[in-house]
C-alpha cells in the first residue's frame, strides 16, 4: 500500500465495480434518485437499461419500493447522496427494509464535509442514523481498491447495507492484492503509544498523522475500520489494549459514528484508555467554496489528528507539524 500522500486517483471505481457485479448477478437492480451521473450509475444505465429504475426525487417511495423488490428475489442498489439516502427516508429504511431484513443496498455518496454544498448536502449523521438501525451493516470506504472489493463483498450480505462513498476523484491507497473483510478491521500498523482508528476519507489523514507522530518519537499505529457495524470488537480491543491512548478519525459527527462505536467497546471492556474523537464536534458546517477548507475549519485535518494524539498522550510542548503536501492535479491528499 501507499502509506503517504499524495495518492493517484481514479474515476468511477464504484460504477465500474457495480457493473461488473451486475454482469454476474442477474438479480441486481439499480435505483436512482435523480443523481445518476453523480453516483456513477450512468455506467449501469448504459449497460443494463432494463434493470435501471429511475425513482425521481422521491426517496421515501424509492426505499419502500426497493424493499418490496427485495422480497421478490431482486437485489436493489439504491443511489443518491448520503444525506438524502438516510435522513429523508429513515422511517422507510427502518420499516420497509431493515425490520424485514431485506437485501437492499443503500449507496450514499458525498460523505461529511466532502461537499461544500452547505449543511443541507452534508451527510454528517448518516453513519449514526444507520448504525442505530437493527440489521443494518454500515460501511465507510474512500480508497478505490476497497470500494471495488466492498461492492463485491456486500452482494452476499443477507440483510441491508449502507455503503458510504466519496464522490468524484477517488484515491488509490491500497494495492490490488489488498484484502477487504466485512468481519475484520485492518491493522495497518501497531503503536505502543497511540492507535489511530480511521474510517473512510479520514484514513489517509490518519496514515499521514501516524508518520508525523513517528517522526516525533511517538509509536503510533493505524487501524482502518471500513466496517463500522458490525464492528470488529476483537481487533479494536486488541489494538486499544496495546496502546496507551486512542484517537478516532471520521468524516462525520463525533456523535454516533466510529468514535462512539470505539468508545462503547473500550468502555465495555474496562480498558480505561484516554480517547480523542476527531470529527465534526456537534456542529453543522457552513461557509465554503471547497471541501478542504471545511476539513480545516472544522478540525478534520491531518494536523488535528496529530494534535489529538499529542494531547491524549500528555506530551509536553507543541505537537509536531504535519507537512503540507503539494497535490498535483488529479492526485489526492488529505488536508
Amino acid at each position, binding site marked *: 500500500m501507499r502509506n503517504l500522500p499524495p495518492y493517484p486517483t481514479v474515476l468511477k471505481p464504484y460504477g465500474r465495480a457495480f457493473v461488473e457485479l451486475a454482469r454476474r448477478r442477474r438479480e441486481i*437492480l439499480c435505483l436512482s434518485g435523480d443523481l445518476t451521473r453523480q453516483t456513477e450509475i450512468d455506467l449501469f444505465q448504459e449497460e443494463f437499461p*432494463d*434493470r435501471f*429504475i429511475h*425513482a*425521481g426525487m*422521491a426517496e*421515501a*417511495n424509492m*426505499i*419502500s*419500493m*426497493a*424493499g*418490496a*423488490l427485495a*422480497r*421478490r*428475489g*431482486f437485489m436493489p442498489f439504491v443511489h443518491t447522496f448520503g444525506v438524502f439516502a438516510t435522513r429523508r427516508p429513515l*422511517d*422507510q429504511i*427502518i*420499516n*420497509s427494509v431493515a*425490520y*424485514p431484513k431485506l437485501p437492499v443496498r443503500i449507496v450514499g455518496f458525498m460523505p461529511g464535509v466532502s461537499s461544500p454544498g452547505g449543511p443541507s448536502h452534508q451527510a454528517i449523521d448518516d453513519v449514526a442514523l444507520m448504525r442505530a438501525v437493527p440489521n443494518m451493516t454500515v460501511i465507510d470506504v474512500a480508497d478505490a481498491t476497497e470500494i471495488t472489493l466492498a461492492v463485491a463483498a456486500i452482494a452476499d450480505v443477507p440483510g441491508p447495507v449502507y455503503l458510504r462513498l466519496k464522490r468524484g476523484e477517488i484515491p488509490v491507497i491500497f494495492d490490488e492484492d489488498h484484502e477487504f473483510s466485512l468481519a475484520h478491521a485492518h491493522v495497518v500498523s501497531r503503536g505502543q503509544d497511540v492507535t489511530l482508528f480511521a474510517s473512510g476519507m479520514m484514513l489517509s489523514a490518519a496514515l499521514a498523522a501516524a508518520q508525523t507522530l513517528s517522526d516525533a518519537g511517538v509509536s503510533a499505529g493505524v487501524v482502518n475500520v471500513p466496517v463500522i457495524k458490525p464492528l470488529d470488537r476483537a481487533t479494536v480491543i486488541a489494538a486499544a489494549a496495546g496502546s496507551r491512548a486512542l484517537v478516532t478519525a471520521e468524516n462525520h459527527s463525533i456523535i454516533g459514528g466510529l468514535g462512539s462505536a470505539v468508545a462503547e467497546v473500550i468502555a465495555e471492556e474496562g480498558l480505561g484508555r484516554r480517547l480523542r474523537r476527531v470529527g465534526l464536534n456537534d456542529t453543522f458546517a457552513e461557509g465554503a467554496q471547497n471541501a478542504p477548507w471545511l476539513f480545516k475549519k472544522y478540525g478534520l485535518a491531518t494536523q488535528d489528528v496529530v494534535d489529538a494524539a499529542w494531547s491524549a498522550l500528555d506530551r509536553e510542548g507543541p505537537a509536531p507539524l504535519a507537512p503540507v503536501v503539494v497535490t498535483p492535479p488529479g492526485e489526492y491528499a488529505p488536508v
Partner: protein
Amino acid sequence: MQSTRIEEMQRAADLLRLRAVRMVAPHGFGYLGQVLSSAELMAVTFAEGFRPGVDELVVSPGHYIIVAYAAGPELGLLDEAQLESYGRDGSALEAIGTESSPVVSITGGSLGQGLSSALGLALAARLSGRSEQRIFALVSDGELEEGQVWEAALFAGHHVLDNVVVLLDANDSQVDGPVSSITTLEPIAAKWESFGWSAFDVDGHDVAALSEALAQALASPRPAVIIARTSTSTGLHCLPEGADGHFIKISGELIDAAIAELEVRRA
C-alpha cells in the same frame, strides 16, 4: 348481477365483522371500526379480485390487518382457531401488522408506505413477466395526508403500473376525528385521475357497486383506485352514537348484542 351473489358477498362482509368483534372482545377495545368500514370492500375484493397464491395484497395501514386476519380462514391462509390469539402476548397476530402477520404480502404500521411497497411488487411482477398478477393495496383516506402516497401515485402513473389496484377505505376517520375536519382531501377522485390513475368513486357499503368498480379497475389500462365511501359504524346498529371509530370500546352486554345482531343477519 344475481341477487344470491350479492347476498353471498354481503354475508361474507358480515362474517368479517363478526370475526372482528370476537377478536376485539377479549381486549374490550380495538380496531373494529376499520373492519366495519372496509368489510364490503374487502369481501368483494376477496370474492372477485384477489386470488390466494397468485396475487399480492398489501395492507398499508397496519391496524387494518384485523380485516385480513378475519378473511384468512376462507382464503385458506390462516387457521380459524388462531384468531383467538389476536393481540395477545406472544401471538403472531399482533393488533398492528408486523412481519409475522399472515395472509398479506406486506403490511406496515408507519402510515403511507404501503402503496410504495405495492409498486415494488408490481415492478417485480413486470420484471419477472407475471403480467396477469394483480397487486392490491388497502389504503386509508387518512394516509392520503402522507406525502409518500403521492410520490408513489406519481411513480405508478408515470410507469403505467396497470396491475395495481388501490382499495381506498374512505371512512373519514382518523385519530383526532373526521379526516375532513383536519385536512381537505377532496376531490379525491380528481387527484388520482390527474396523477394518471383510473378512479372509481362508489358507496363502499354497496356490494353491487363495489363489484362493478372492481371489474372496471381490473380492466383499466392504468393503475386504478376504488374510492369506497364508508363509515366506521356501518353494519353494527347496537353501537352507541358517537363511538370513536378509530378505536372502538366494546365490552359486556354490547359484545353479546353485537354478536347476536351479526349472527341473526347471517342466518
